[in-house]
C-alpha cells in the first residue's frame, strides 16, 4: 500500500469500515510513513472539529408556532376527509351533483334570459302593405314583445294575418289571384246595347266600391271579357249596382270629390295600361293597373262577359 492508497482510504479507516486485512496493510504503511501519519491525524482533527459544531438554536416561540401549524394541518385534513373520503364514493357523487347543478343553471338562464336587445323582425303590418311598400321593405315591430305577439298571431294560422303579412307588389295583381278567399272568379254575363258605354259605367262603379279593372279581352265591337277586382265586402253592393245599371241603363251614384278625383285618375291609368296590353294575353301575364287596393280587405275577382244586344 502506497501513500496515495492511504490517502484514499483514510476516511474508511477512521470510520472503521476497512476489512481487517486492508486495515493491517493500512497501519503497516502508517508505521513506515510519518507524512501519512500526520495527514491522517489532520483528517481526524478535521472530522472532530466538524462534529463539535454547535446546533443552531431555534427562536423563541418555536414550539407555539409549531403547535399552531399542526392544528391547522389537522383541521384541513379533517375537512378534506369529510369532503373527499372515501374517494371512490364521494368524488363521483360530488362530480355528478356539480354537473346537475350546472345543467340546471344553464337551462334556467336560457329560459328566463331573453336578451332585450334582440331584434325581432315583425311581420309586416297589413295596413301598410297594400300597394305602398316595396317587396324588400320589412318593417319591424316596436319592440320584441309586440313582434312576438304578431308572430304568435301569425303562427295561429289565421288566414287574414297571413294575407296581411305577405308582401305585396303594387305592379302585380297575380298574388291577389292566389288569395284563397277570393281566388275563384265569378262570371257574369251581361248583354247591353252599348258595350263601350257600359264599360265606362262599369269603371265608375268599380271606382265607387274601391275596385279596379284588371284586364280586358276582346273587342267592343263584338264581345269583351272584363276581369275586375274589388273588395270582398263590397261585392254585394257592386253586383246589385251592376244589375241595376244593366237593367236601368242609369248613371252611377255620385261619389265624394276626393274619391271621385282619385277614381278618375285610376280609371285613366287603368285604361292606359289595358290599351297597351296585347289582345289574348293570359290573365296571369296581364299587367295590373296601378289601382287603389283596399288596404286590409281581401279582393274578389269577377269576369264580365259583355255581349252586344242582338
Amino acid at each position, binding site marked *: 500500500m502506497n501513500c496515495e492508497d492511504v490517502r484514499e482510504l483514510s476516511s474508511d479507516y477512521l470510520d472503521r*469500515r476497512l476489512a481487517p486485512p486492508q486495515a493491517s496493510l493500512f497501519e503497516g504503511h502508517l508505521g513506515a510513513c510519518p507524512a501519512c501519519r500526520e495527514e491522517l491525524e*489532520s*483528517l481526524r*482533527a478535521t472530522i472532530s*472539529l466538524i462534529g463539535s459544531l454547535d446546533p*443552531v*438554536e431555534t427562536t423563541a416561540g418555536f414550539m407555539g408556532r409549531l403547535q399552531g401549524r399542526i392544528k391547522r394541518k389537522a383541521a384541513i385534513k379533517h375537512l378534506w376527509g369529510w369532503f373527499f373520503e372515501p374517494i371512490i364514493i364521494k368524488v363521483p357523487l360530488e362530480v355528478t351533483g356539480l354537473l346537475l347543478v350546472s345543467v340546471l343553471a344553464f337551462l334556467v338562464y336560457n329560459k328566463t334570459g331573453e336578451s332585450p336587445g334582440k331584434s325581432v323582425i315583425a311581420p309586416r303590418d297589413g295596413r301598410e302593405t297594400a300597394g305602398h311598400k316595396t317587396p324588400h321593405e320589412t318593417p319591424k315591430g316596436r319592440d320584441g314583445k309586440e313582434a312576438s305577439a304578431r308572430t304568435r298571431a301569425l303562427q295561429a294560422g289565421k288566414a287574414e294575418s297571413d294575407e296581411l303579412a305577405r308582401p305585396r307588389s303594387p305592379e302585380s295583381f297575380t298574388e291577389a289571384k292566389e288569395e284563397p278567399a277570393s281566388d275563384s272568379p265569378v262570371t257574369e254575363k251581361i248583354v247591353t246595347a252599348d258595350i263601350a258605354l257600359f264599360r265606362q259605367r262599369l269603371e265608375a262603379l268599380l271606382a265607387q266600391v274601391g275596385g279596379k279593372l284588371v284586364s280586358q279581352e276582346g273587342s267592343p265591337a263584338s264581345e269583351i271579357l272584363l276581369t275586375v277586382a274589388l273588395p270582398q265586402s263590397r261585392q254585394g253592393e257592386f253586383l246589385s249596382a251592376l244589375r241595376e245599371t244593366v237593367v236601368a241603363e242609369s248613371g252611377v251614384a255620385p261619389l265624394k270629390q276626393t274619391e271621385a278625383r282619385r277614381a278618375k285618375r285610376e280609371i285613366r291609368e287603368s285604361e292606359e295600361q289595358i290599351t297597351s296590353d296585347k289582345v289574348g294575353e293570359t290573365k296571369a301575364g296581364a299587367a295590373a293597373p296601378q289601382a287603389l287596393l283596399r288596404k286590409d280587405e281581401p279582393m274578389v275577382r269577377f269576369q264580365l262577359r259583355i255581349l252586344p244586344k242582338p
Partner: protein
Amino acid sequence: MASSQDPDKELIQRIQGGDRLAFDQMVLKYRNRVMGIATRMLVDRGEAEDLAQDVFVKVYRGLPEFQGESLFSTWLFRITANSCLNRRRRRRSGPPVSDGAGDPELAASDPSSEPHHLLEQKELKIVLEKSIQSLPEEQRIVLMLRDMEGLSYEEIAESLGLELGTVRSRLHRARLQIQARIREKFPVDSRRSERL
C-alpha cells in the same frame, strides 16, 4: 413500533399512543439539531426555522405509520435532509459564502476583549462554517449527517437514495476539502481537535 435498541423507543410509543406531551419532548430534544442542518443547508435562518417546523409537522403526521425499521433519529434526519434538498432545488440557489452573518454571536464579538485562544477558536469556527457552506450541497448534506449527526453510511445511503460507494466518495471529498480550507487559513498548526 420503535427498534429495541432505539434510545427514543419509549418516547415514540407514547407519542403513537396520543401523548402530546411526549411529542413536545421529542421536539425539544431534536429541534436544534434539525435547525443546525437546515441552517447550514439553507443559510437563511428564517427559512431554516420554517423548514424545521415543516419537518416536525411531517414527523407528527408520519409517526402513526413509523414502524421502527431504523432508529427514530435516523428517520428524523432523513426527513430533514430531503426537505433541505427539496427546498434548495426549488430555490435554485448555490451556497453563498457566509461572513459570519449566520451566527450573530460571532459577528457581535469584540476581538480586543477576548483571550487569544478563544478568539482563535472563534475564527476557526467561522472558517469551518464558511468551508461547510462552500461545499456542494450533495457533499454538505452527507458530511453533516455523518460527522454532525452520526448516521452510518448505510443510513445515509438509504435516507438520500444513494449507493454506498457514492456516500463514501462524497464524504471523503468533503472532509478533504474542509481540511484544505482550514490549512489554508491556519497554515502553521492544523491539529485543532479542541472542542469549540
